[in-house]
């Protein structure tokens, strides 16, 4: 959490759902102090696991990026939301997103996976799909490079390979083949 705060540029990470409350609470607080101008609210999509892990559900939340490039980080952070009372579970709620940054058309996501963030095989598969879908909702993102503690790893959680980077076209094709 400290890591997030330190690189948070004044905006707090989207808060994980508390489990008790309903939808729509995922909007990050506008913790931005001394903003030069009022941020425009932006609607972003994110993906959560369907109750019994049958697949992913698409959800939307409104974020207020302090700058245009901050929208990516807020969208990725939204992956930690989940309305568990409604049977929607975040696949990323225990992960720590250290850095989210668009460089050219490549979105870098550097993250940490504490023990409790590590899922079983199908959980991993869905988690990767959820973050990739979230990243590729932005037309300008052509590829997603996920690093774990700054390192390229063969696999996020030890079952599926993690491409470096995940390329939009390949991801879309792979998803289509799954069906």
């Amino acid at each position: 959490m400290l890591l997030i705060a330190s690189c948070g540029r004044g905006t707090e990470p989207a808060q994980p759902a508390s489990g008790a409350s309903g939808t729509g609470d995922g909007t990050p607080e506008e913790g931005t102090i001394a903003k030069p101008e009022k941020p425009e609210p932006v609607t972003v999509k994110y993906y959560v696991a369907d109750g019994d892990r049958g697949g992913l559900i698409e959800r939307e939340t409104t974020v207020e990026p302090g700058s245009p490039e901050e929208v990516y980080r807020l969208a990725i952070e939204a992956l930690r939301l989940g309305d568990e009372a409604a049977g929607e579970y975040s696949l990323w709620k225990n992960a720590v997103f250290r850095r989210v940054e668009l460089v050219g058309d490549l979105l870098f996501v550097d993250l940490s996976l504490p023990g409790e963030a590590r899922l079983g095989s199908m959980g991993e598969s869905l988690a990767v799909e959820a973050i990739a879908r979230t990243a590729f909702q932005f037309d300008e993102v052509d590829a997603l490079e996920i690093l774990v503690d700054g390192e390229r790893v063969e696999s996020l959680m030890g079952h599926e390979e993690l491409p470096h980077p995940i390329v939009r076209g390949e991801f879309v094709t792979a998803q289509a083949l799954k069906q």
Partner: protein
Amino acid sequence: MRRIAALLFLLFGLLALYPAESHAAEPPALYLNGDPIGQGSSPRVVNNFTMVPIRVIAEDIGYSVDWTPGTDKVRISNGVSLIELTFGKDAALVDGVERPLGAPSFVDRGVTYVPLRFVGEQLGLKVYWDPYSKSVFLHQPRPAEPELPAAPEPPGEEEGEAEGDEGIGTEDGEVVQPVEVPRTVPADALGIVKDIRFDGRLSVEVPYEGVLTPNEPFWSGTKLVIDIPHASLSPEMMADLAARKASQGEVIIDIQAFERIRYSYYSNNPSTVRIVFDLKSRLDYSVSLEEGALYVDFASLELPPDARKYKVVIDAGHGGEDPGAPSVTGHWEKTFNLAVARKVYKLLEEDSEITPYMTRSDDAYIGLYERAGIANELGADLFVSIHANRFESWVSGVETYYNRADSLRLAEVLHKHMLKATGLPDRGVRKANFVVIRETTMPAVLLESGYLSNQKDAKLLFTESVQDRIAAEIVAGIKEYLTTYGGK
């Protein structure tokens, strides 16, 4: 030139007709008489027809295949019959008579493909399609060899003793036609085999009279065969066979890899005695012909460990810096995986038919592709990856994953045993794209034994007696699978 251009256009057109085919996930494998063939030109499935490369098959069974550049015709001949194919045409000329192909032949990258059924019918091959391994097996029925045409069988015995009297086959184990056992020693027999006896240790003695001229021994599978032309069994031995109405005699050994010796008057043109050593594995041997006796000495009768029938790779998931999932009881998944994998390994070691291997035997990280590579390089028969799951605390149960169609049956068998071992809810056999089950080349599964995020599951999975039970059931499943479906 115009002709070639037209042909190229034709070929290109044909390819364009089958665009989906190039994306087919797994081309079927092709075997001829048990050997894989057609590397680089696998069979294709086009519009529901299985198309196979004709040249590699035809040439392997003694046909010549000729394509004259500049034409769109291929001539396939064995000197007796002639098959003429025209690319893209739905029929072929067989000895001048037009026969339907079922689907047009086509050429891709210099390889001519024709429908599988046509190959079977016109080249006289038996065709067997195994949908699970996606393999095409072609078998060429072998005509009895002219020099060794027959297994001896007393007249009038054709219908009896079908069981247990499989006969000493030809080289590929096919039963052959009966040859009458002579009543007296045939005139062309220069040597007479008087007995066949085993010394109880490593040596087989074949005493004889006259001149013995044995052929070079040859292997048929794990059977060692010695043919002795211009020889006969002694009148006593033949009388003994006749009295028992048997076509062959046998000496039961049943020591380690040595099962028995069988012998027969195998042919009358010339008179030939055949001696077959039934072994469980190919053993080192030497043959020495001395005056009055032929000796076959084995170096050892022990079944070599690498000659055990099946290789099974056990993969303990995660390890080292990849701990896998944590359990609510404070353990790591990698510990569970390794503990069960070790137990499985130990149990499999006790089976004389199985050689077990582990991708990791301690707390080390092994890459996912490396794990699959280990199994592929070994030419393993089965691959079983052991894992435990994690999601929300309320989820409980067993899942078994497979990727390729050839792994579904293994998944189903092992899933059943995992349910029995754990008593946890059945969350099904599922298909997924995990590296170790996708990149392996043999039936491979990934077992998610239970949910470490669930109190009940986690407690169970870290109970020693339950781990023992899981290991025992995985082993029972592996054996059940191998018994039912065999190895790779």
